């Protein structure tokens, strides 16, 4: 059975119109119009998101879940109404499977931290890949340290693709968890998570997918993937900072002990014994980021109005153009040339240091990320100090790609 589509396209994609909806894009940097190509770090926010946050604070703000008064009810309704929005967006079976977190990092920590309380045992293996973001490495290292489990790593080849044979060989009787990035933030590689999940499940192993870089660039359906956990950040999908989602299958949420304790996640407290609230609230201790969650709902509404395939076509044009032009320049190493990749182009002009190049490019108004992109093990493997990364979002234009290439050319000239 094919799950119902999670997005409904009601708007035709019009680049100029879209650009006009993101106020920050009209900024000037060092006397040049800003070319913002650091979307994998964080995306910009459309007016609808800003307006929603503002109107929440101006007319609805109250603490959720506890009050009988109208304002508290309205705030609670607004907050809880985002759960089904995220459920549909991710294709979850139930809104009880949507836990609001600070972001991807907290979502991974929540799972790793909760499973460290009883699930992982000494000698258990946690299988990661060589292209994970630190946020999908360190929480598992902490859990391993606490429980005596060990971390194993699936190797990555020179094009930036996972070695699936090695993955299958590593999946063994001691494997208790697989954690894998859906789309790599430093390379853009789209990993074959569906296959990897099927492989893991055939051995009875659950899989966590780090979807931080996936959700803004293509449809995600967690039921279709059949992943056990899926993590994302609102700020990387046109939403506010400080919020995100952990999707987890209901059976896992029921089974897992709580992660943080506090108000809102309990049903009864005595000093002798505390009983926890039902899922998903069991995992949401304390006053939540109401404005953040409500803004995230507005961001998903914004994105869902488009046909995601139109956005994908647009972004893939940008990637193809950028890649072609960088190859044309010559003397530029492309890092991450996987067959399946998304809106990221990572590169390094030969003989130059990414810090220097990024510093000079900024002088021309072009914002790219330089460094190891929180994937240090991968950079170590490639023997480079880091890369320059241009990462695209729906509001980027082919003109901006030309400005990117021009800035690279000028920076190289200047630095050589």
């Amino acid at each position, binding site marked *: 059975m094919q799950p119902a589509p999670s997005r409904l396209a009601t708007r035709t994609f019009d680049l100029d119109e879209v650009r006009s909806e993101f106020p920050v894009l009209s900024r000037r940097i060092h006397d040049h119009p800003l070319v913002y190509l650091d979307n994998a770090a964080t995306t910009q926010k459309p007016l609808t998101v800003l307006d929603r946050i503002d109107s929440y604070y101006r007319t609805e703000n109250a603490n959720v879940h*506890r009050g009988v008064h109208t304002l508290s*009810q309205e705030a609670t309704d607004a907050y809880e109404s985002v759960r089904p929005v995220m459920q549909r967006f991710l294709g979850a079976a139930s809104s009880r499977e949507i836990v609001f977190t600070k972001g991807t990092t907290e979502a991974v920590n929540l799972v790793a931290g909760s499973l460290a309380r009883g699930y992982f045992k000494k000698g258990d293996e946690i299988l990661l890949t060589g292209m994970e973001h630190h946020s999908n490495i360190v929480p598992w290292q902490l859990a391993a340290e606490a429980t005596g489990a060990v971390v194993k790593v699936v190797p990555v080849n020179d094009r930036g693709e996972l070695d699936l044979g090695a993955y299958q060989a590593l999946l063994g009787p001691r494997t208790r968890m697989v954690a894998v990035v859906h789309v790599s933030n430093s390379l853009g590689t789209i990993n074959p998570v569906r296959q990897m999940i099927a492989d893991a499940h055939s051995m009875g192993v659950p899989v966590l997918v780090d979807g931080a870089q996936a959700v803004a660039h293509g449809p995600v359906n967690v039921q279709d993937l059949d992943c056990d956990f899926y993590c994302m950040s609102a700020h990387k999908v046109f939403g506010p900072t400080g919020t995100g989602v952990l999707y987890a299958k209901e059976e896992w949420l029921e089974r897992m002990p709580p992660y943080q304790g506090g108000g809102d996640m309990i049903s*009864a407290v005595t000093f002798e014994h505390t009983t926890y609230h039902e899922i998903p609230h069991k995992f949401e201790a304390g006053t939540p980021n109401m404005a953040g969650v409500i803004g995230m709902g507005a961001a998903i509404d914004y994105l869902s109005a488009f046909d995601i395939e139109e956005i994908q076509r647009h972004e893939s044009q940008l990637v193809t153009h950028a890649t072609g032009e960088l190859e044309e320049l010559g003397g530029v190493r492309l890092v991450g040339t996987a067959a399946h990749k998304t809106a990221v182009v990572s590169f390094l002009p030969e003989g130059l240091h990414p810090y220097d190049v990024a510093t000079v490019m900024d002088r021309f108004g072009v914002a790219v990320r330089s460094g190891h992109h929180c994937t240090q093990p991968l950079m170590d493997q490639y023997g480079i100090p880091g890369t320059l990364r241009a990462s695209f979002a729906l509001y980027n234009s082919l003109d901006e790609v030309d400005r990117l290439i021009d800035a690279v050319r000028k920076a190289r000239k200047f630095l050589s």
Partner: protein
Amino acid sequence: MTATATIEERADEVVEEFELFDDWMGRYEHLIEQGKALPALPDAYRDEAYKVRGCQSQVWVAAEPTDHGTIQFWADSDAIITRGIVALLVRVLNDQPPAAVAGTDLAFLDRIGMKEHLSPTRKNGLDAMVRRMKLYAEALAST
């Protein structure tokens, strides 16, 4: 209230009654009256096992199969507004076939402006009570 009326008919009856009042005071007074008329919860049911604990108010709910294949509900609450809603639910769902109870949507509460009391986030125990009523009904319907 006719014992043979369906859930929908009884719900419509409730809605008609509430339509007589044109301000919230009248409606709430009538609601509280309903609570006062609620048959007393048998002592055996005033027990932890039948209690649904909420932050805001407590609710007790129990169910018995009748010999003519319907369900008899017993319920109570420590807050009188909550008890009023409890009474409406019992009035509408009592002595109905389990399958009908399991499948009902209780939209009539919306039509009398009391829907918000059923919100899980009100933490008054009502939503959990409704879930229990339906669970009882499903269990009986499947036997």
